[in-house]
């Protein structure tokens, strides 16, 4: 089950590339950040970013660098505030979706932000379930 979030991440990457351009991987990536050590998170960011770049036909590495910066900001925020809460996952998903849409010129910013915020709710409850069952 440790690979559950990895599998969901790959699904969300294909979803964004081939079905509808909603970055559903953002709440999943936030859950990975709050669950694992920095080195693992940074590695996931580069590898998963490369996959996204290939599927979205972008310069390879650019989404990985974006993910690294998100991860660093979250780790810095974690030093003073609680990150394993629904509030953080919800608000951070929406803010990061806003930033992602502006950085990569993705249209439909506000609708996507709301959808990503709503999608962070089931992701958070999945995270809680995984935590209770010691899957992460």
């Amino acid at each position, binding site marked *: 089950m440790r690979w559950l979030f990895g599998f969901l991440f790959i699904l969300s990457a294909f979803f964004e590339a*081939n*079905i*509808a351009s909603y970055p559903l991987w953002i709440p999943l990536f936030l859950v990975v950040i709050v669950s694992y050590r*920095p080195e693992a998170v*940074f590695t996931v960011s580069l590898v998963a970013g490369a996959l996204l770049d*290939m599927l*979205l*036909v972008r310069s*390879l590495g650019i989404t990985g660098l974006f993910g690294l910066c998100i991860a660093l900001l979250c780790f810095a925020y974690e030093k003073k505030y609680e990150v394993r809460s629904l509030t953080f996952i919800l608000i951070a998903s929406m803010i990061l979706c806003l930033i992602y849409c502006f950085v990569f010129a993705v249209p439909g910013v506000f609708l996507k932000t709301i959808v990503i915020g709503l999608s962070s709710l089931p992701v958070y409850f999945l995270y809680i379930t995984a935590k209770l069952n010691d899957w992460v």
Partner: protein
Amino acid sequence: MTRMSKHSYLLGSFFLFFFLGVCIFFLFQLPFFAPVRGIFESAFLPIERVLHSGSVGKLTEVDSLKQQNAELTAQLAKDKQSEKEMAALKDQFAFSQAAARTLLPSHIIGTHDVDTYVLDKGESDGVKKGSIVVVKDILLGTVFETTPHTSILLTMSSPRQTISVHTSSTNALGIIRGTGGGRMLLDHVVLSDHLDDKDVVLTKGNSDKQIPPDLSIGKISSVDKKISDVFQQANVIPLLDISRISVVFISLP
């Protein structure tokens, strides 16, 4: 570990991975590494085709009829142009022959937004930036970016597209500008030219022959003409709903 050393460790690992990320970014800009990207792309392409075709779904009868109607409208506009050219040729005894073009069928495997689509053919298939994408005699857009096995199609309604055009019935000259969201604007038409509602807009053709003449782009939906303005404008809608198409054709030079 003390707090300071934890902080330094975090920053250290971040900068190491950031440096790796930058190296990956610059390395894959080099043509040497393009085949590596191509290997992964060719592995993902079948999955992407299935997912996208599943999301589009089967064409309903209404969609098929709409597509047929659009193709017939484009054919009718082209036939009108051919008649005019034949009449001119008869008068002038001039002769010109359009350069033969190879059409490469390609599937749409993804979409970034209403005006940007991903195709499953790339540089290894001979696709170049600027290649036109058509269905029958309807110009859908141009290739904006290529990778070894995929290309990005920018439709004519993208704000990044501008092209010289003329209308089928009245031969009014103008420029089509994409305005986003599947819409186009026919601009810079002099007031003395007449624009008809529902008239088909055709390409003028450019000097380097990348975009041939007399390809249909869209149909005028409304005309905006004010005597006080220098030019008149018209809203143009595409003939085809590209979100309902799965196969398009890339014109190879």
